[in-house]
Structure formats: structure tokens, C-alpha cells
């Protein structure tokens, strides 16, 4: 069937021309302080964005029109694919995902430049030039080695369809959110570099891009959690995080970005750590692009990398230019990046923030090191080694627990200085609660030291954050004689950034509770004939029936499992083992019974011809809290974002800089 796919490649070439024009106009406009050229550059960048959107729309149209003369359409869609997953095919393959990435990049760039052009013309001109330069790189990839509109001859009658693993509701949202996060960091990165180039190293560059930073971090956070939810519900191994290289690729920039969101508060409050902040945002963006390189280069094996493509070698020079160029400009401007203030005391909130930053950075390094170590070891020693989840758990969890402790401690410590006596007073109650939780759990028979520490720190941090809310509410109750609920609401709304940040911290605590529950997982598997049972902790799982059916896409084989506890039927579970016709690929669909105490998780790994089912079943305690914590985090993000002024101009108008996102 014919489609608008023919528009795709010409649009990409037009976008590339306009991006190049924008870059030139911005650079000349910045060098000669010509606002008219900056305006023209902005229009060119907007045109590049428009043409990229046209190109992406052409590919979407080709997907929906089943135009299998386009190789990408034939490889990632089929006539039987549902409409939702047909749209998801836009980012289901390497070329389409790059096109989607580039569309987001040019569009975000155009919007950011338009918004801040009047308030900071010179800064914006340089930022525009950098963003257009990044856009040129991705558009060149799309025009040359990763063309999504390559034609296919002869034209097949039907496509191969989308990978069954990607046919999940989570996959409709997870990749766009991750890409929004990765691409969103290009805005603060470009403005930071622009500030370095112009020598305007006050707080202007990050107040101009505050909302972008928050948006990118939030998108990445939610994207990562949704990725975990997808793995949990689709992959059938009972877990949500496998330290897979691609997962790590999204996690590393999240870690450095989280460090940045915290350390930027110190620059706003105390005008310190300027070098640190520009370095962190540089690292964050470099790691985001590095993740894209890892996913697409084929240098690392992963269950969900794109197939090894020709574009990996294009990324290395680009990454080198970004890293060396960025660090070079930082080195040149080092004099202007000196802190205007000093630490007053080691026992201060500044020190807690600094320790937090060091730990986040060490955590990011640890993940990077573990991810790359097999390549490094083979290159240096010729020995093939693997670095899997046990390694990451061993080295990462202690760092994460230290960060959790600081999450509780930080809000309790005052800025500038705090005496040991005052410190002892403020941490007394959280410390008692944390200790009581550890002792009570140990007495109740919990033997895992790691889990005990995690639960104790969760209690410590939750109490510390709760006490901050209690203190804020008490003040409002005293002043307004309102009820507890309205006092809490007033506390939240009067300082959304601070208390929204605390809500995010509470979400993190809930997530850690859920993760720590993984220490108590029970797993059993058995080959069951219909009518046979297996024990799973306190439950009995009975395989009662096999139901077969067919849809245009797949042959469905559903095992009906009775879940009993103490002889009483508590649930009927229906895991499936299906065969996807277009891909000639089997795929398991899990069945989960979830509640705040535990998940019972069942998956069929195979069926025998005589109807016997290989059942794999898990009890995953407290997993529910991971998703609940993510929702609480999202609530905190909404509260923080609601406290942000819309647009850079309002930020610039403020005379007193305000912190970005985290609880101060």
C-alpha cells in the first residue's frame, strides 16, 4: 500500500540543512552580538524541528498504511499488529528510535531557545549553536548510516511484526519517557556550555533551564520505573532489575543528574561548587549519549539492545568532542568558577550535600565500571569475564544505603553549621525509630543483615522526613488554628520545592522497602500434569486446566492455576505460553496476584504435547511498595513542578535565586 513514506527522507535532508543554517546563524549572532541573526537562527531551528516532525509523521503513516516497501516498516510491523503497537513500532527499531530521539531533540531545542532568547540573548545564541550542532550529528546519522526510509525489493506481502516482548502497554510509554529524559538533558547541557563560553557563570544558566532539568530527570525516573514494571510483567523471571547494560545505560545519567539536582542547591544558596555543577551536567549528558551508543553499537551483549548496527563508530568521535570540548572549556574558565563562599563547618547541610554528591558519583562510576569491565579486562588481559547482578549488588547496595542514610540526615542538619549537641537532638528520634525497627525485625526472625539495615534506614529516613512535615504543620496550626489536614496542605503548598522534594524522598523510602523485600523471595518450579499440585511457601498451586485459543497474531495456551492457602482458594491465576505467528516466536505472559504484603507470580515456561505444564512460581514479598513508591515519587515531582515558574523569563526576573528541585 502506498503511503507518505516518500516524504520522510527529503524532510530529513531539509531538517539537516536548516539545523546547519541555525548553527551558523547562532554562532555569528553570538560572536557579533547580533540579535537579528539569533532570531533567524531560532527560526531555522524551528524549521529543522518542523521537518523532523514531518519525517517522523511520514514513518508513522507508512507504519499504519502497511507500506512494506520501506524496510523498517517490514521489519517492525505487520498487518495484524494492533494500532497501539503499530505506533510503538516507531521506537521499536534502531532507525525509528533515532528518528524519534531527533524529533524530540530538535523540538525541545527550538522551544527552549525561543523561550529564553529575549532574556539571555547571547547565552541563548551559544546554547542554540550547541543544540543545533547536536541535532546535526543525529540528522547526519539518519540521512547516512541509519536511514529509516530505506526501500526494500521485492516488497514482502506482510511484515515481521513487532518483537512480542515489546508488545506491552509499558512499552507504549517507557521508551518515549526515557528518550525525553535523555534528550531533555541536552538543554541544561547546552546552556551550561554556553555559560562557560560566554563567561556568564552566575546562576542564570540553570535558572533558565530549571524546568527542563526537572522535566528530564522526572521523565527518566518514571521511564526507569516503567522499564522495571515492563521487565516484571513481561520477561517472566520474577524480577524487575537485572543490571543489564541497557538498564545501566539509563541508570548512570539518572545518578549524575540526581547529584546535580542536589548540588545545584548549594550553588543557589551559597554560590559554591560551580565547577562541580557544570561538570555534573556535562557528565550527565555525555552518559545519556553514551547509553545510546551502548544500546546501538553492539559492543555489549544485552537482551534488549538493538541489533549490531553501523552507527556505533559514529558515536565515539561525537562523545570525544563533547567530553574533551566540555572539560576543555571548564579548564579555561576555572578561574571564574571559583566558589564565592566557603564551608563554615564540616557539620553542615552543605557537607551532607557534598557527601551525597560524592556517593552518587561513585555509584555512577561503579555502574559504568561494572558495565565496561568485561571489555576492559578482555582488551588488557585477553581474559573473558562476566560482570553480572551479584557483582553490582555487592558493590552498589552499600553505596545506595549510605545515600539513603544521608537522605534522612540531610534535612535535619542546618545550613552553614551545626553543633554536635544540636545534631544529637535532631537525629535522636529517627535514630531510635530506626534502631527499634532493626531490633524488632531481628527478634521476629529476619536474618538478612542487608535487609535489616535497609529497613532500619528506611524507618530512620521516613521518621526524619515525617518530622519535617510535623514541624511545618505545627507552625501553620499555631498560626492559623487550622486542622491537621489543612496545616499539612498549607505546609506543602507554601514551599512546594522543599516539601515536594521530601515527598520524593518518601517515595524513595517506599521503593527501598520493596527492593529489600527481594531478599525474602521464594521460588519453585515443577512440571505438572493437569490436577497436580506444587508447594510454594504457604501456598499450594494446583494446575487445573489448559485452555487453548487463537487470535490473528498468536496461538494462546493458558494454564489455569488454583492458588490455595490453608486449603482455602485465594485466587485463580492464568499464566500463558503463546506462540506469535508472524515472528514464529514463543512468549510467556505472566499472572500476578499482588497486594502490599506479597506478590504471587506464576509463569509457564513450556507445555508438553500431552498438556503437562512447566510452571515457575515466585513469592515476591513487598514488591507492591516499589510501584507505590514510584507513584508517591511522581506525586512529589508534580508538587515540585507546580512550584516552578513557567518560562525562563519569570525565573530571570526573580532577584533571589531559588533551589531547583530537591528538599533543601
Amino acid at each position: 500500500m502506498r503511503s507518505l513514506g516518500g516524504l520522510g527522507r527529503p524532510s530529513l535532508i531539509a531538517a539537516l540543512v536548516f539545523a546547519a543554517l541555525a548553527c551558523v546563524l547562532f554562532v555569528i549572532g553570538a560572536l557579533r552580538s547580533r540579535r537579528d541573526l539569533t532570531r533567524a537562527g531560532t527560526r531555522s531551528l524551528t524549521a529543522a524541528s518542523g521537518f523532523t516532525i514531518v519525517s517522523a509523521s511520514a514513518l508513522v503513516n507508512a507504519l499504519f498504511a502497511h507500506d512494506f516497501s520501506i524496510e523498517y516498516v517490514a521489519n517492525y510491523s505487520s498487518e495484524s499488529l494492533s494500532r497501539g503497537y503499530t505506533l510503538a513500532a516507531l521506537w521499536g527499531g534502531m532507525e525509528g528510535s533515532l528518528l524519534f530521539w531527533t524529533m524530540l531533540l530538535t523540538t525541545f531545542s527550538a522551544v527552549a531557545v525561543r523561550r529564553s532568547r529575549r532574556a539571555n540573548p547571547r547565552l541563548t545564541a551559544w546554547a542554540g549553536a550547541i543544540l543545533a550542532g547536536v541535532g546535526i550529528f543525529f540528522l547526519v546519522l539518519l540521512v547516512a548510516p541509519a536511514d529509516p526510509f530505506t526501500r526494500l525489493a521485492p516488497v514482502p506481502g506482510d511484515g515481521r511484526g513487532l518483537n512480542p516482548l515489546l508488545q506491552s502497554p509499558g512499552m507504549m510509554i517507557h521508551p518515549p519517557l526515557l528518550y525525553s529524559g535523555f534528550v531533555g538533558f541536552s538543554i541544561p547541557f547546552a546552556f551550561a556550555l554556553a555559560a562557560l563560553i560566554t563567561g556568564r557563570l552566575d546562576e542564570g544558566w540553570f535558572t533558565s533551564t530549571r524546568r527542563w532539568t526537572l522535566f528530564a530527570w522526572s521523565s527518566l525516573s518514571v521511564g526507569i520505573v516503567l522499564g522495571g514494571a515492563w521487565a516484571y510483567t513481561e520477561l517472566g523471571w520474577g524480577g524487575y532489575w537485572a543490571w543489564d547494560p541497557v538498564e545501566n545505560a539509563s541508570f548512570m545519567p539518572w545518578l549524575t543528574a540526581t547529584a546535580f539536582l542536589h548540588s545545584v542547591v548549594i550553588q543557589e544558596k551559597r554560590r559554591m561548587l560551580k565547577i562541580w555543577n557544570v561538570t555534573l551536567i556535562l557528565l550527565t549528558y555525555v552518559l545519556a549519549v553514551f547509553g545510546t551508543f551502548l544500546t546501538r553499537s553492539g559492543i555489549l551483549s544485552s537482551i534488549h539492545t538493538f541489533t549490531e548496527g553501523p552507527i556505533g563508530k559514529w558515536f565515539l568521535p561525537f562523545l570525544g568532542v563533547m567530553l574533551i570540548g566540555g572539560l576543555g572549556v571548564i579548564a579555561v574558565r576555572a578561574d571564574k568558577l571559583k566558589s564565592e563562599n566557603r564551608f563554615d563547618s564540616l557539620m553542615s547541610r552543605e557537607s551532607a550535600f557534598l557527601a551525597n554528591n560524592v556517593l552518587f558519583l561513585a555509584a555512577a562510576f561503579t555502574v559504568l565500571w561494572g558495565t565496561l569491565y568485561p571489555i576492559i579486562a578482555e582488551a588488557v588481559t585477553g581474559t573473558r569475564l562476566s560482570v553480572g547482578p551479584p557483582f553490582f549488588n555487592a558493590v552498589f547496595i552499600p553505596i545506595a544505603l549510605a545515600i539513603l542514610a544521608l537522605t534522612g540526615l540531610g534535612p535535619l542538619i542546618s545550613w552553614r553549621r551545626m553543633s554536635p549537641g544540636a545534631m544529637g537532638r535532631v537525629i535522636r528520634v529517627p535514630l531510635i525509630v530506626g534502631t527499634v525497627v532493626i531490633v524488632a525485625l531481628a527478634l521476629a526472625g529476619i536474618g538478612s543483615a542487608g535487609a535489616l539495615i535497609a529497613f532500619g534506614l528506611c524507618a530512620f529516613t521516613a521518621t526524619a522526613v515525617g518530622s519535617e512535615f510535623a514541624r511545618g504543620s505545627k507552625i501553620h496550626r499555631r498560626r492559623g488554628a487550622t486542622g491537621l489536614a489543612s496545616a499539612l496542605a498549607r505546609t506543602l503548598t507554601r514551599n512546594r520545592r522543599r516539601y515536594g522534594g521530601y515527598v520524593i524522598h518518601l517515595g524513595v523510602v517506599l521503593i527501598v522497602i520493596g527492593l529489600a523485600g527481594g531478599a525474602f523471595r521464594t521460588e519453585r518450579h515443577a512440571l505438572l500434569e493437569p490436577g497436580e499440585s506444587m508447594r510454594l511457601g504457604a501456598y499450594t498451586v494446583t494446575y487445573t486446566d489448559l485452555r487453548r485459543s487463537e487470535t490473528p497474531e498468536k496461538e494462546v495456551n493458558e494454564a489455569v492455576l488454583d492458588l490455595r492457602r490453608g486449603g482455602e482458594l485465594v485466587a485463580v491465576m492464568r499464566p500463558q505460553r503463546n506462540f506469535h505467528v508472524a515472528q514464529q516466536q514463543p512468549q510467556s505472559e505472566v499472572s500476578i496476584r499482588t497486594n502490599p504484603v506479597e506478590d504471587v507470580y506464576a509463569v509457564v515456561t513450556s507445555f508438553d504435547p500431552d498438556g503437562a505444564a512447566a510452571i515457575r512460581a515466585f513469592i515476591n514479598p513487598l514488591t507492591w511498595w516499589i510501584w507505590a513508591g514510584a507513584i508517591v515519587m511522581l506525586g512529589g515531582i508534580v508538587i515540585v513542578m507546580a512550584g516552578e515558574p513557567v518560562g525562563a523569563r519569570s525565573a530571570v526576573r526573580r532577584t533571589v535565586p531559588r533551589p531547583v528541585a530537591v528538599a533543601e
Partner: protein
Amino acid sequence: MKRIPAAVTLTIAIAIAIAIAVAAPAAGAGPPEDLANRISGEIMSPYCPGVTLHDCPSDAAVELRGRILGWARDGWSRERILDRLEAEYGASIRSTPPASGAGLWAWVMPAVAVGAGLLAATAVARRWSRRRAPEQNLDEPTPSQRSRLDSELAQAREQL
């Protein structure tokens, strides 16, 4: 802070502890199953790139997990099973690098990163704070000063 009733905090703490203790399951039924599950989480799958055998959904992985369970049921120790797998699939089947030879640096560098980072940060903070220390008054506020501080903080918060 200190006015939060002790009974409330203790109640919260005990409630959390009870909830977690209820959620944590009793010990599993069969040691062979637990051993097999643990081992499949300690080795990389020869069939799924970058994923442990435990997490690999392929049919071949299911079969290998079954073999490991069989060895565990036959009374093989963890080391014997891991050695057998290493002999069959090579050293890279182990998901953790050895703490010696080519694998040593994998373990050393994260510790070095944390240690060096914290040492550097402490040194910088100490150096900066030492410069400022003589100018500061380290006395703690008196109760009346604390009361005034609370009141002014409340006003400041109200104005934010």
C-alpha cells in the same frame, strides 16, 4: 522534633516491623531447589546475552536450570556444580569476576572511587571550614534564642 510523642514513634516503628515480619516468608521447603535457584542467579546464561541463567526465558535455559536442580538433588555442593558449569561453558559463565588476577580490579576500583571521593571531599571541606573557623562563634543558642529563632523561622516560612 523532640515533641513527637515517643509512643507515636514507637507505634510506627513496631507497625513497620510487624508488617515486614509478616511479609517475610518462612524458610523454603527444599534446600536443593534453593541451592539451584541461587546458583542459576550466580551464573550468566549461555543463551541470553547479558542475563543470568535465572533470568533467561529461553527453553535451553529452562533445560540447564533443570540439570542444575538435578545435580542439587543428587547432593552436589555449590562449588562442584559451579566447577562443572565452568568446565563446560568457560570462566565467563560466572557472573562475578574473581577477586584475583584479571578480576581483581573490578572489585578494587569501586572501593577506590568511594574512598578517594569521600577523602577528597572531606579534605576540601575541612580546608575551607578551617579558614573560616576563627571567625565563627560555636556557642549553642540559649533557650530564649532558640525560641526567638523558631518564631522568626515560622514568620519566614509564612512569607515564602
